[in-house]
């Protein structure tokens, strides 16, 4: 049994600019059917946003990133969701996750400079009620993001004609 929604999502995940007509050819449906299914997936919140993946390291005045881990103490009527929500609302914060292990919450933050990021963490995050400690790891180099390898690699050669 084919899962058409999944097949459409696979194409879109790889290329957000694929048009319904192009996707239709690839999965063997009509453009209308694909358009309808995409609309349904958007409405259901499965598709949240169409994005461009940018390697900011290749852009002058790019960004500084840090991964920040938090230990959190919980209060009677405030769970992890509540503190995660407070962190998520900052536009500097790119992703927020509840994690297992030594820390409770991990988030990534993006700023213009290390100072920028450091002040954000100490002023906005460390001071939040329930945050017991923070541990900030600045990203020195990014090798792979969203399934895409960012560094240049030599491609092995294939023969041009084989049986």
């Amino acid at each position, binding site marked *: 049994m084919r899962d058409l929604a999944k097949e459409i999502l696979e194409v879109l995940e790889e290329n957000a600019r694929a048009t319904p007509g192009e996707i239709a*050819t*690839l999965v063997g449906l009509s453009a209308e059917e694909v358009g309808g299914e995409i609309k349904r997936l958007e409405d259901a919140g499965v598709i949240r946003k169409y994005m461009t993946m940018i390697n900011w390291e290749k852009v002058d005045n790019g960004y500084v990133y840090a991964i920040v881990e938090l230990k959190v103490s919980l209060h009677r009527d405030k769970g992890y969701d509540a503190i995660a929500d407070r962190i998520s609302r900052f536009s500097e914060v790119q992703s927020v996750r509840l994690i297992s292990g030594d820390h409770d919450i991990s988030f990534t933050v993006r700023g213009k400079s290390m100072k920028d990021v450091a002040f954000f963490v100490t002023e906005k995050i460390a001071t939040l009620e329930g945050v017991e400690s923070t541990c900030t790891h600045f990203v020195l180099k990014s090798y792979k993001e969203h399934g895409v390898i960012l560094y240049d690699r030599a491609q092995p050669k*294939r023969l041009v*004609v084989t*049986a």
Partner: protein
Amino acid sequence: MTHSDIGAGKRRLAMEKPALWRPDSHLSTTVRDMPPSGIRKFFDIVVGMEDVISLGVGEPDFPTPWHIREACIYSLEGGHTSYTSNKGLIELREILAESAREDLGLDYDPEEEVLITTGVSEAVDLAFRATLNPGDEVIVPQPCYVAYVPDVLLAGGVPRPVATRLSQEFKLRPEDFQDEIGDRTKALVLSYPNNPTGAVMTREDLEEIADLVVEKDLLVISDEVYDKLTYDGKHASFAQLEGMRERTVLLNGLSKSCAMTGWRVGYALGDPAIVGAMTKVHQYTMLCAPTMAQVAAIEALRRGEAEVMAMKREYDRRRRLFVSELERLGLPCFEPKGAFYAFPSIVGTGLSSEEFAEQLLKEQKVAAVPGNAFGESGEGFIRCSYATSREEILEAVDRIERFLADLAA
């Protein structure tokens, strides 16, 4: 020493020199008379050409999934570099027997009925050498992979090519080969999903030829290396038909499904008498398949399923894209149901397959393989592999479009 002594020495040397050495006269006549592969010529033209887009390659464009390569590297670090049993690693044979049970519902004994070979190519060669006596005939439905006919010849057999037709979606029909079967006909080759046509044979299609196979007491040598790349429905093997398991040598490998062409891992499943005979030839010629490749194959079969399916889904997308583009160009093409080839007809251009492929390569730098490389019945077609990126497929289609426009002008 006098001058005359030196002269005598020279004469003596000249007399000892044997009659003119002609290496040609020491060649096997079978090999000498064997035509080179029809794709050889294209290698020569392609050398030194820049910016060629290739639709000519019979292998995946994906590298072998990293976890498989990594498992092999790890085993090399551990020093697993000695021979394996002639039959191959028992662990691998057991996994293959288990897959046959799951995928085909067939039981094979890993001890007696499974042989690991150096690619399916070796398994094909072994099957012929283990079963043919000089003069025995083999029915070879064409268009097909280029090695069957030469391998039959090398085994001392006589190939009997039979044509499959576009009108029958390149499936083998009983009427295609019943008149070709004589007293010396011993075996039938099946290769579905098919290289170069992309044809598949369903269980019903296979059932239609089974009666004739039994009536004429033929052995079936079934090359199913593209089995995982079947796009509509499930792959069917001749060995699954009632009573046909013993009559079939099932050949397969990991090259296409797991993107492992260069590793050379294939296998044969079949009756102990035939697999045993193949093992005998294998033991005296190959000894065993490469150990590191067998280790990689174990990893591929144990944990490769997700990547195999992801590659298959991508081939399926490319297949739809390419066939719809060929349709747009007006090149009639049967919709391939398996493997990763399209086989459009180029009869409408007035060119032969070779002329078309050669001019296309020289003028637009697109490499495809002329259909007649896969047998006479492939004349009028070209084989285009869509195991290349969608961007390259679209660029190739643009170039073919320009080529057709120039032809028409």
